[in-house]
């Protein structure tokens, strides 16, 4: 009957691109992924990439030395603009991390199978991004060695932190986020670590992977516990996707500063975070699949899906910008009006308009399937979005601060070489960690990939037969 009702003239909808290319077996998947770590010669490009990244990590260490040794005055910050690259970078990195958690947790709960081949390195990306992000709140302090005062621990001074301050909420949000992200990533790694342990040739790697695998033997009990733990962690991580950037947005929204004090900030920040996070996953996935020949596992379908997420979150972010402008006008409030006018036409207007170009206009090309399936185009769009999201934080932080209530105190801000050194340095650190990760750990979840194979599609009857 259904066939009969279907208009004959309509062609059948095209089947979605597969999440794993045909022709693989359990063995071939395991071989291919573990070989990157265990048997394949490390390509020269890895050494070059790692070398460059490590150089920038050293730049970061030097910059940290300078900042801690001489004071945050080496940065361009001043009064009124007391936060500059430090907090811009913090928010940017935290935002980038969000894609990993979203992919791992929410898509897992939604049973989106396409997530499988990208979740591992997206999670790693999250972890490393949080590590980079976490540096900035520490470094931005005037006296970073006293950072532990932010923690509520019993002390002889008899003082608690100020629980009304969003910075304290931040401490909780970010540390929780970091911890859960790490656990999630690590728990997901355990079966694969056992695989590596079993396949490792050298004694050192056998011992190392053996310790990390925590005695995994692949028994049904292990699998049962694993699945339970993983699901629970996914459940725990899910609210974090929303909460972390919400709390980060409170850093601004709680204040009384025009341009910061906005109720739209939490959803707008979360959308922005996912937006930038997916852009970063895309930025990393495209070269990785090319270099390591993983086109079979990270397929066009993955890229297209991510492009769609970028488009949707990009639209939410654009709505946020629109609303900020609208609120500024609709309040009829002198300071709010001025803030918007200053953003549009003030001295930093070029930054704002570049941001609109990057974050609002550029992603619109993703409406076209031709673009969504064009790898170089996707790569370029992803890079532009990353830049745009950095600029967004620049506009929110610097442009709001530089001209607030009293014109007598208005000023200008520009990053110094040490601002750039810390920024570029954290990119170096991020890439260094990523290079190490792809060298020593399976960048794609082996056992989860195996479940995607046709062989894994176990039917009831087959189960029965086995028994």
């Amino acid at each position, binding site marked *: 009957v259904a066939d009969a009702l279907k208009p004959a003239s309509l062609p059948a909808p095209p089947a979605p691109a597969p999440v794993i290319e045909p022709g693989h077996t359990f063995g071939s998947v395991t071989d291919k992924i573990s070989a990157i770590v265990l048997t394949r010669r490390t390509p020269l490009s890895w050494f070059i990439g790692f070398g460059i990244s490590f150089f920038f990590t050293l730049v970061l260490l030097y910059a940290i030395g300078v900042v801690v040794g*001489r*004071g*945050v*005055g*080496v940065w*361009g*910050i*001043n*009064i*009124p603009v*007391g*936060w500059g690259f430090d907090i811009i970078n913090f928010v940017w990195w935290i935002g980038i991390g969000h894609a990993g958690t979203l992919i791992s947790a929410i898509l897992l709960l939604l049973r989106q199978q396409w997530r499988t081949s990208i979740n591992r390195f997206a999670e790693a990306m999250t972890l490393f991004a949080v590590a980079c992000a976490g540096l900035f709140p520490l470094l*931005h*302090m*005037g*006296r970073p060695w006293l950072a532990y*005062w*932010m923690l509520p621990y019993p002390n002889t*001074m008899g*003082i*608690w*932190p*100020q629980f*009304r*301050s969003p*910075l*304290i909420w931040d*401490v909780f949000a970010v540390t929780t986020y970091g911890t859960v992200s790490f656990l999630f990533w690590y728990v997901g790694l355990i079966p694969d670590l056992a695989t590596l342990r079993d396949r490792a040739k050298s004694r050192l790697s056998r011992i190392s992977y053996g310790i990390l695998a925590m005695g995994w033997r692949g028994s049904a009990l292990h699998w049962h516990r694993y699945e339970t733990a993983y699901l629970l962690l996914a459940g725990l991580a899910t609210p974090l996707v929303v909460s972390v950037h919400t709390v980060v947005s409170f850093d601004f929204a*709680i*204040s*009384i*500063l025009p341009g910061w004090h906005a109720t739209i900030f939490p959803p707008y920040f979360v959308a922005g975070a996912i937006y930038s996070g997916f852009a970063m996953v895309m930025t990393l996935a495209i070269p990785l699949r090319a270099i390591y020949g993983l086109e079979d596992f990270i397929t066009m379908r993955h890229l297209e899906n991510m492009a769609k997420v970028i488009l949707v979150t990009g639209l939410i972010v654009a709505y946020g910008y629109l609303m900020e402008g609208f609120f500024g*006008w609709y309040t*009829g409030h*002198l*300071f709010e*009006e*001025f803030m918007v*006018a*200053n953003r*549009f*036409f003030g*001295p*930093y*207007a070029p930054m704002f308009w570049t941001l609109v170009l990057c974050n609002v206009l550029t992603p619109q090309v993703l409406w076209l399937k031709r673009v969504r399936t064009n790898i170089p185009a996707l790569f370029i769009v992803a890079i532009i979005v990353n830049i745009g999201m950095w600029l967004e934080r620049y506009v929110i932080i610097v442009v709001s*601060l530089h*001209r*607030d*209530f*009293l*014109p*007598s105190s*208005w*000023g*200008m801000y*520009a990053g*110094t*070489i*040490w*601002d750039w050194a810390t920024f570029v340095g954290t990119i170096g650190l991020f890439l260094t960690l990523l290079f190490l990760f792809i060298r020593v750990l399976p960048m794609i979840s082996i056992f989860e990939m195996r479940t995607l194979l046709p062989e894994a599609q176990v039917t009831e009857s087959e189960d029965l037969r086995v028994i």
Partner: protein
Amino acid sequence: MRGVPPHPAPEREASMRDMDLSALRERFQQLSGRDYWRSLEELAGTEAFEEFLHREFPDGASEWIDPVGRRQFLKLMGAALALAGVGACTRQPAESIVPYVRAPEEIVPGRPLFFATAMSLSGVATGLLIESHMGRPTKVEGNPEHPGSLGATDAFAQASVLTLYDPDRSQTPTYLEEIRPYAEFLISLDAAMTAQRALGGAGLRLLTETISSPTLAHQIQMFLADLPEARWHQYEPIGRSGAREGARLAFGEPVNTIYRFDQADVVLAFGDVLSCQAGNLRFAREFASRRRVFGEDARMSRVYAVESSPSITGSVADHRLPLRPSDLIGFAHLVAGQLGAAAGPPPANLAFAAEIHDTWIPALVRDLQAHGGSSLVVAGDEQPPVVHALAHAMNHALGNVGATLVYTDPIEAEPIDQLQSLRELVDDMNAGRVDLLVILGGNPVYTAPADLDFGEALRRVRLRVHHGLYRDETSELCHWHVPESHYLETWSDVRAFDGTVTVGQPLIAPLYGGRSAHEIVSALAGRPGESAHDLVREFWTEAFNGEGEWGPFTDVGGEPFADFDRFWRRILHDGFIVGTALPERTISLQENWAAGGASGETSAEPLQVIFRADPSVYDGRFANNPWLQELPKPLTKLTWENAVIVSPRTAEDRFGIRAARWSSQATPRVTLRFQGRTVEGPLFLLPGHAHDCATVFLGYGRRRVGRVGAGLGFDAYRLRTSDALWYGSGAEIQVTDSRTRLATTQGHHNMEGRDLVRAATLQEYLAHPDYIHQRAHTPPKTLTMYPAYTYDGHAWGMSVDLNACIGCNACVVACQAENNIPTVGKDQVLNHREMHWLRIDTYYAGHPDNPVAYHQPVMCMHCENAPCEVVCPVNATVHSFEGLNDQVYNRCVGTRYCSHNCPYKVRRFNFFLYADFTTPSLKAVRNPDVTVRSRGVMEKCTFCVQRINHARIDAKKEDRMIRDGEVLTACQAACPTQAIVFGDINDPESQVSRLKAEPRNFGLLDELNTRPRLTYLSALRNPNPEIVPIEGRDGPGPDRLWFSRADRLGAGK
């Protein structure tokens, strides 16, 4: 605690010792109502300007490549001390701390003592009380009983204590720049004097600054009596020469004029009379007393200011008229003529605008005449003699003499024509008639008129001796340099603007072995052993015994003193000698005095140049004082250097620099040429400056003074000639291609229609006392989530009267001195990192040709709902039980969030280690009651909590509440106009509570519901209704500014 030093101490010490102007105007026309802006660049506020702003930070890398930041000078100071042998290279030996066996009298550790003394500037003294902690003078306060202070001080006096400890001061006698013992100097001097005695002193010349010290003058006169051929010359680059010569012109003899602003209903001021002026503190107090309006008391004076270069006097006047110096003279002639003062015919062809001729002058003249006997015409010290003479004549014609001003004899010992005196000296030197020149104080090589070429003449003197605080440009050319003792290190006596004598006592033994002028003159006279203490005491012993014109002396009650000892202790304790003020005298104008007066510059073409004393470094003597260098100059808000200041229209008409394209952050450097001499400096466009003239501040471009002051700005003395001491015609300005950034603390935009300074005219205010609140929105007090604080005891609050504030900066330095606030250096000021807890915002309203200016001192408001408190993650800024917003430095981790959430931007952050923790001498200047902040912590105004706590201890000992007026904050104590009042707002009878009940009371940004504890009293102006306000400042406030503002921001796109 005030008193005489413990009796043995003095004796002991004695023995030791683009503008597109038309577009701008057009835009201005479009603005309706009262619109405020801070500087031209802001008014223009175009994209082009913003681009300049933006380009100012090419990579922002200035501070890390800057080799020696001025901030680092403090570190260098430590090294210098080590070189000078003061510091030690080795560890300090272990010392045992033991209590005094016999404690010095009156010293209680932790309790400061106050001693009265006086500081003199250009021969005019201000009576001071110096706070001393365990023998270290740390803070200067005014002496409330001294007529020249009345408790107030100026910025110079406040900063003088830093000069005392300046490690760059000269520390030892030198001969040809080599260190020599003082004894060798005495031998050398003795040899030269022996030769001179034989000649009757024919080859001996003394060059001093203006001397009003009775003892020193007596010493010099006695010394010269033995050497009939010797000559005494005086020269001071700034000071009262114009006033002296003006009086000579009018009366035939120099007189001292004492104004009584409190008696004057109408004031006509030529030039600046409220700063850099003898008696300015007293005058400012009396001036402000007639500017306050409380309740029904509306006896507000009306002030007309006519000036060339914008000054604080013009900024607080009701009507201000900017005129070129030559036009100003013509204007004075015109007004004097219309007032019937016999001033001769006014210069021909005066080119005033019709509105000045037809409206301004007649209205002014009518107003003055209507207030005959209660009006006052004053001329600032920087005005040329003819203006002073005309002012005298006008006051005579108006019958003001004896009512609003009185005359006395001059306070100077020898009120000579100093320029003539210097000329004679230079002639003598050039003619080779001088064998021995002793320069006591001053720096004539740097300050003498350029055409006299003092330095060249000096080289022809066989033996040259320089006595000064610093090794400077003059000491370089002298054989001998002998360090001078600071006024806090020596005994002396000085006279106030009215002649009142203060015997100045030392607070500390000379830090660097300096000698006072008394001792040098004594050494010249062949008695090198005499100490300043003995000389001063001896002089007053004789005076007490009735020698000379002095005495008999009585105490305040009119009782004669029993003996000299009581007299001496009393005058040291009080800080002045009762009855030494000069008596009032009557004097009449000379016949046909004005014959030689008038010289009108009729053509607009030649550019005129105006020389002014710098409001921060004066004549250059304070160049090595970082507190003063970093002090934003009134109106320009410029720090660390001087500039060539012109009006925006002049810049556009003459150099094609449009204000819209001009920014202090990228200003062109210009060459200023005058009489064949050239200097180069940055251009500054100052609204309200007279057209076709340029102002340069003296005192910069010091080649040699110390690490702080050398090499800053340009030396305007190189243009100043003896025929153009204060202004000259025929200057040329050429704009060069290079650009520079000026370290101004001024903001970057206009006030955007925000009601930050609320102002009204007196008429508006009297008609509608709630006038200033009409546009205000104050949220209800219940609008908070948190329960209200309760204050059972005191609740501290402050009131600042914007109508009394003259923007003189004394409070800024007082705050810096009291609270150990570091200076940061020019590079840090360029990046908005200045540390002043108290700043004075200046806003303009009206047309840039002649705007109205408002000064607004801004410090921590100690909000009831403080936005900073809730966002500090570590509870480092908390609400005290008396409502102070306390900053706990030890707890601060430096997130700077509090600063972002502070709408007043009064919080200051230690981006680096700004405070000097190492230099020994600078440790001594610190207030021991205030923490010295380290790197990475936020700081801000505390309402001088240490003073509150001192008072609390006293009150608790007596089991009582702190009394109203018992706590004076540092800014309040220094304020010459008493604009700042601090006290308990829980007490309805306190002065501050009564001020806050005034209808003029308003809170800055109170629409934000911060509920500031510091509130302002709105500014009032009392314009003459006959004069159409040039400012065009009235009209309904704009409430929808979206388009106009967007326009303005986007203009030029």
